[in-house]
Every structure is written in C-alpha cells, then in structure tokens.
C-alpha cells in the first residue's frame, strides 16, 4: 500500500528514549527544538511555523523580563538583608512617582509591540489560503475523527492523507451518531507540527488551515476534553508526495472486493451483514462495494480499513491480533460507554469461529 510505503517504520520505539537522558535547560530546549512527531516546537509547515516564529520572539521578551525581575529580586534581597545586630530602622520612603510611571509605561510599550504582529497573524492564519487548496471535512465523534474529501468522495477515519506542499483547509464540526446532529460534544483537532488546534463545536462549522512541507506521519490528539476516552482520541496526518497521494486517492475510490464464495472471508462478509439476533456490523459500519451504502454510520467506514496503520481512535496498531481482540471485547482496548449512552462500539459476544471469519474478511479491506 502506498500509504504505508510512504511512512516506513515511524512508530515510536524505545530507541528514542536514549535521547531524553540529557536534561536540557529550558531555554536551550525551546530554541533548539527537539524532535518528536507531536512536538509543537518543531513545526513542519507554514501554518505552524508562523506562530512558532512569533512566540519565539515573545518568549525572548519574556526571558528578558524574567531575568530582569528575578535578578532584581535576588539583588534586592541580598543587598538589603538585615545584618546581625543591625537594629536601625531604614528611611521610610513612600514611593517615587517617576519610577512608578516608568514601570507602567515600559511594559505597556512592550505589550503594544507584541500585540501588533499578534493581531496581524490572527487574521492571516484564519483566512482562506491564497493558493489552490484541498478541502477535507472533519467530524469529531466520541472518540474518533471522521474525514470526508468532497473533491474525491472519499471517507476515512483517524488517519488523514494529504498531499505535500498543498494547503489543506479543514471544515470541521462534531456530532456523535454520524450526521444525526445529535448528542455531539466539543472536540479539538490538533496536529502540533502542522498547525495549532481548532475546536470542533456541534452546531458550528470551524475552519483550520494546515500544510506539510515534507512527507511523513504527523501525530496529534483531540485536545478538548470530550469525556471518558478523550485520552484515546488521536489523530494522524499522513503527508504524501504528489504521486503517492494520487495512488492513495485511486485506492480509496476503488470499491472493496467481494470475497470468493465458500471462503472464510466470504463467511466473514456474511457475518458482517447479519449476526442474527445481535446487531450487525453493517448497521454501524459501511463497506462500499461499488453500490450500496457509502460513508460511515455510527462507526468508521471500513472500506479501506487496512490502508490505515492504526485503529480505534489511532491508539492501537492495526494488526490481525489486535483487531481480533478488539472485536472480542472493544471496551478492553478502549473504554467506551456503549451500555450507558450508546457511545462507542458494543461487545457483540462473538464466538471464536465468528472472530476468525470476521478478521479474515476485514483483512481483505485495503
């Protein structure tokens, strides 16, 4: 698969742990931003770079103020400490208007200086990108992100593929039962290396621009507390070279294959559509086979499930074993509230035979 090829082996490993042994000082760390896929100090696109440049500058001012004030405190407390046996009473100065005006005016000037570029950048960041851009619609659900590409009629979840060097404008809102505009709560979409965060508010549409300058896998996370599994609602952006992106689009717009009659996979497909007395997978998940339903229901669209690396809010690697464990007991892998308010995926009490068949079938979906 093109997507996976484009981002080989970028899973976090213990290898990186060695790096954190050095306890770098705050200043050094902020200036020489260290790496990490979810690191706001390591921007990888213009919409992250501009705020970063601004804050570095503001941080510089803050450091100066910090050093000045703390230095002044240290000096004063040292210089004017009472020495043993000195019981004299110091002169009773009550104030000094000149000084006081000084430390009113100077901070005001500094702040005025900060606010000008701040205000400018606010508008720049929120305006529509000037260049041709790609639109992706984002819907926040408890607890996963859904993406829709109106230009290509593509549905996917948790992992968003974007072309490198092209601005992307996200159009975002939130609901829970897809498109039923019901029960949604606020989420926030945040890929630190590509852009700041923007909330997804039910009943509103919000916009966020982002752009990646290099191919790669950029990590992020829902950043507005959204209940039980807020911590397990992650987001990934996979930036692809133009060619790879085209291949990805082609793949995503191809319907799923129907497995050959009599195979385990076919049995899985059958179960997917009908679990007897239990709720069928198909009642919440769509698999597009060229006709029929398209797009997510209550759960993610699974047509191209195995084109993604992670699943369930991008908290687990998508492997057959993990998938099996998920189907056997979703709550075990990710706390959800299906029993309480119908949010999340239920435990369908699948038998081993059913699990084998379903996993085999799902593995054909790439």
């Amino acid at each position: 698969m093109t997507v996976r090829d484009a981002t080989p082996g970028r899973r976090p490993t213990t290898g990186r742990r060695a790096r954190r042994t050095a306890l770098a000082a705050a200043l050094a760390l902020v200036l020489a931003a260290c790496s990490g896929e979810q690191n706001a100090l390591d921007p990888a696109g213009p919409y992250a770079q501009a705020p970063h440049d601004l804050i570095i500058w503001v941080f510089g001012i803050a450091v100066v103020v910090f050093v000045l004030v703390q230095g002044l405190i240290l000096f004063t407390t040292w210089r004017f400490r009472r020495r043993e046996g000195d019981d004299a009473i110091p002169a009773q100065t009550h104030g000094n208007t000149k000084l006081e005006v000084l430390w009113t005016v100077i901070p005001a000037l500094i702040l005025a200086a900060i606010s000008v570029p701040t205000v400018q950048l606010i508008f720049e960041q929120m305006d529509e990108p000037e260049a041709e851009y790609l639109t992706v619609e984002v819907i926040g659900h408890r607890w996963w992100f859904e993406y829709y590409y109106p230009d290509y009629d593509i549905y996917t979840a948790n992992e968003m593929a974007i072309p490198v060097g092209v601005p992307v404008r996200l159009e975002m809102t939130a609901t829970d039962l897809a498109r039923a505009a019901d029960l949604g709560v606020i989420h926030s979409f945040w890929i630190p290396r590509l852009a700041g965060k923007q909330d997804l508010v039910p009943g509103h549409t919000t916009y966020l621009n982002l752009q990646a300058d290099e191919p790669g896998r950029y990590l992020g996370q829902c950043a507005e507390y959204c209940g039980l599994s807020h911590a397990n609602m992650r987001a990934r952006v996979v930036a692809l070279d133009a060619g790879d992106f085209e291949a990805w689009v082609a793949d995503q717009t191809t319907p799923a294959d129907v497995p050959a009659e009599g195979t385990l996979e076919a049995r899985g497909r059958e179960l997917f559509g009908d679990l007897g007395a239990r709720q069928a997978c198909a009642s919440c998940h769509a698999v597009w086979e060229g006709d029929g339903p398209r797009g997510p229901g209550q759960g993610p669209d699974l047509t191209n499930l195995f084109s993604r690396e992670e699943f369930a809010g991008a908290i687990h690697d998508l492997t057959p074993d993990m998938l099996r464990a998920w189907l056997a007991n979703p709550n075990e892998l990710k706390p959800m509230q299906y029993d309480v308010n119908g949010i999340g995926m239920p435990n369908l009490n699948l038998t081993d035979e059913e699990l084998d068949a379903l996993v085999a079938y799902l593995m054909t979906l790439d």
Partner: protein
Amino acid sequence: MAMTTTPTTGAPTPRFRPSSREGILSWIGTTDHKRIGIMYFWTVLVFFAFGGTQSGLIRAQLAQAEQSLITAEIYNQMFTMHGITMVFLVVMPFAAAFFNYLLPLMIGARDVAFPRLNAFSYWFYLFGGVFLYSSFLLGGAPNGSWVGYAPLSANAVSNMAFYAVGLQILGVSSLASAINFITTILNMRAPGMTFMRMPIMVWMTLVTSFLLLFAVPIIAVALFMLQFDAVFGAQFFQPASGGDPLLYQHLFWLFGHPEVYIMILPAMGVVSEVMPVFSRKPLFGYAAMAFAGAAIGFIGFGVWAHHMFTSAIGPVPRAAFSVATMFIAVPTGIKIFNWVFTMWGGKIRFTTAMLFSVGFVSMFTIGGLSGVMHAVVPHNAQQHDTYFVVAHFHYVLFGGALFGFISGVYYWFPKVTGKLMDEKLGKLHFWTWLLGFNLTFGPMHLSGLLGQPRRTAVLPEELGGTVELYNLLSSLGFVVLFGSALVFLYNLIRSLRRGEVSGDDPWDARTLEWMTATPPKPHNFDEIPTITARDEFWHRKYAEDEQHVPVPVPAGASVDTDEHAGHGEHIHMPDASVWPFIHTMGVLPLGYGLVYANWWLIGAGVVWMVAGFFGWIIEPLAEGDDDEPATALAAH
C-alpha cells in the same frame, strides 16, 4: 444537634442560644468573625488534603507512559474534583479565612456588618463541600472538568449535576460574604480610617468582593442552565435543537476569568502586608498598589474569551481579547515592581513569612509571563489545553495564591494563637515547598510545548518518548510537596501546642490588628482607636525626623490592652445564634432534590430554609436587644 427545634413563627424570644465559649455548640452557634475565620482555615486544610490526594493519583498515573493504575473514569473524576476542590474549596475559602479574621481588626471594627450572615456563609461553604464530596458515595463524582463545558456536562449520563448544584451552593456563600464585606468596609471603619488609610489587604478585600458580587450571578445562571439541561430536559446547550454550546463557555468564563483574580488579589493583599513589616519600610507606592488592584479587577472582567481562542469565535474577537488580555500585565507589573521596591533600601528580616512573600513575587512572575504567552493567539492554538497551560495556572495559583496565603499563615499565626510558629521547621517547609513546587510544575512547561494535552488519562506511548522524563519529574515533585505539606502540618500543630509565646507585637508591625490584645478579645478593641495615619500602629510607635528616619516614640507603643481604658459595659456584641446553621442545613435536601429531580426533597428543603430563616429574623441579634432603637440612625 438541635435540628428538631423547628421555629414557631412569632415566638417572642428564642430560648435557644449557646452561651458558653467552649464546646462544639459554641462553634456551631458562633457569630464571632475571628472564630468563623478559624473554622474556615481548618476546613480549608482538610479539603487541601483531599485535593492534594487527588493530584497524587493524577501524578501516579502519569508518572510513566501507558500506565493504568486507575481507570479512565476514575482519572476523569480525580482531575475534575482536584480542580473544583482547589479552586472553590481551598483557595477561595482560604481568602475568606483571612478576610474574616482580619477585616474588622484592620479597620478597627468590632465585627463584620452582619455577623449571622457571616456564619451563614461559612455553613453554606461547608455544606457545599460536603455535598460535592458525597457524590463519591452516590454513584460517582463529577467528571466533566472544573469548567464543566456543555454539552458534555449537560448530559444526564455525566455526574455533573452534582457539580452544578454544588457550585451553586458555594456561590451563594461567596455572594453573601461579598455583600457582608463590602458593607463592612464602607460602613464600619474606625473614625479617621479613610479609604486611603486602609491597609492594602482591606483594599484587596473590597476589590475581591466586588468581583464576586458581579461574577457569581453569572455562573449561577450558567449552572442553572446546565443543571436544567442535564436533569429537567431544558435545551439551552443542546445542539440538536439549536442550542449553542458557546453560550455556556461565555457565561462560564465571564465568571471564570474574574474568578482567577478573585483568587490572586487576596494573596496580593497578604503580601502587601507582610513585605513592609519585614523590610521595616512602608509599602512602596501605596496609592498605585490600591488602584492597580482595582484596575486588575476592572480589566479582568473584559478578557474572558481568552479561554476560548480555539473555540468557534472569529478573528475579530480573538484579536480584541488578545490585546485586552495582554494589558493586564501592566497593572500587575506595577504591583510586582512596587513590592520589590518596598524591599529596596530596607532591612529585610527573612522570617518564614517573608520568604513565602518573596517566593510569591518570584513565582507569580513566572506564571504571569506564561499568561502573556497564552495571549499570543496564533500560538495559543498550540498551548491551549496542554500542560503548558497547566504549568501557567499552577504557577499563578500555587506559586501565587498559595504562597501568599501560607505567608499570611506564618505572619498572623501569633496574632490568632499568641504563639510563634517554629522558624526552623518553617524554613524547612519553605525550601522544600519551593523545590517541590518547581519540580512539579516547571517541567510541565516543556511537556506541554512538546505536545502533551491536559485531561488525558494516559500518557501515550508515542508521546512518552519525549515527555516521559518530565512527567516523572513532576510526579517526584509531588512527593516532595507532600512531605513538605506534612512538615507544615506538624509545625502548625506543634506550635499550637507548645509554640514560643509571641507577645502582642512580635514583628514590630504596622497595622491596627497588632494594636490590640493577642489573641484578640471577642470585641476586638476595648476602645475603638481613632486613626490619624496610614500604618497607624507604626506611627504610634515611631515618629519620623526630617530625613524620614523613624525614631521610637518613648511610651508610644501602648498596646490597647488596658482594661481601664475601655468601657466594658457599653460594648454590646452580637450573641451566638444557631439559626444560620439550622437554616443552612436545609440546603442539603434541596440540593439532592435538584440532582435527583425529586420534588419532595426540593419542597422539604425550601420549607426548611424558609422556616429557618424565620427563626433567624425573629431572633434579636443580641439578647434583650430590640433590634432597633427608636433613634435608629438610618430613619432620620
């Protein structure tokens, strides 16, 4: 307790008044502002232990990546209750403890304007806290964060009904205190105590009370709406029927931002008292200090949306609120520099109280600077809801408010108890506190910028690589803080038992409260002093020569303990009353009724409170008091 003595309307004189000054009943019935202040203090300590324990669980869970010591549900309850506890049950009532104890003493009054209302405030606070904590036993504590955003919290499935009702109760308590304190300050100053002669602590009490007065009603509305959405099916914040979640955010932060200044200004008041005394100089720039405080309060009302920069608001409000927010740094800066210059040229004595005050100025500045960084909107989108914000507000709240209050505890402990706190233990407390604090919250700046979001029950593995160390340091910091808190607690209890006797004026202090007996008598002053200057007490002790160098006045330091000077018989103090307590208890059935939509309980609570209120108003303030002599001043 006498819950059964339901009042009978119209009874001429209630027979039920605790008259002794000892025993539990005397505390339940007390109307003495000093004893109420002491009750606030001990209650705060208990809740602080709860809130600290919750943060301990948080830190344990986050000490390493992908841990599951506690479930996500428990984690969410922990940080929610931690936030609520620290804000509403620790910092705010801590301020109330100081205000209560000190305000009348500092302005030369015998009590606050409404002593029974004052007791009412305390009991409402206590029952509000008990009510909130009872949720642990009744199916789960609130779990929607201390800001309780709708629609998440406006949902019957969440435990946030307890939050909505509990905070409502605490709000009533605060509002009553605010009205009480404003009236007291405006109306009960000793002769000669003009506004510009009031200690800064009193100024900050006044400003804080005004902030409460105007902010509490706003959150009251937000909470009512939340509560009715969650329990009674109202539609305020339900997007499905067109309700707008942003309305809740606006209402919450219209309260919430003034609230943060409600928490810091009292501590600034404390520091403004401590610094001059131990520098042996008057406060530098008194007028600027008073007005900067008022300015902070005023501007503080106009910046609320800086908590919503990443919400669904447009660029114009983002820009406007960004600029407004930044400019709060100006009056705050004035305060910082004035404190430093209070020390400048002084002879600084580094008692524990002074150390904590210096710590306040230093640590608060750090928190303030990260606050200004938050206000840079484009980058706020990176900082918002990360540990960088967590670092910011712990620096201003813990490094600010708590440092200030603890400074105040060391400073006024001798006034309250007549004993000095142990200085050796105090210094141990200070240095471990400072270390533990920075160890806990310093690294959070980094983990936040490196991408760690707040309110997450697990530290993700893939993030763990970069921020795990910082989280571990934070967790270690908690251990240091915990140890340090134990030192503090031990010091308090030890000093209470066998602390060195302090005398009336151990610090060579400047303000009125040190001029009376230690501990003060129930009526505070045998004779209400006439005020001729700011720092009245100091000026009675020292005169100034031409070069502003003070010279002791020979027999000037006469402390007001002279039995003969007072006209004991004329001092008429309010008697104890159990009615505030009885009245207040009705809030429990009312509260549970609202949470469980049980009209019987609601009805019972209302009837109880109305009956209790009647008992209250027909009981004279003091025995044999006709409540209002014909010469009533207000009438003519």
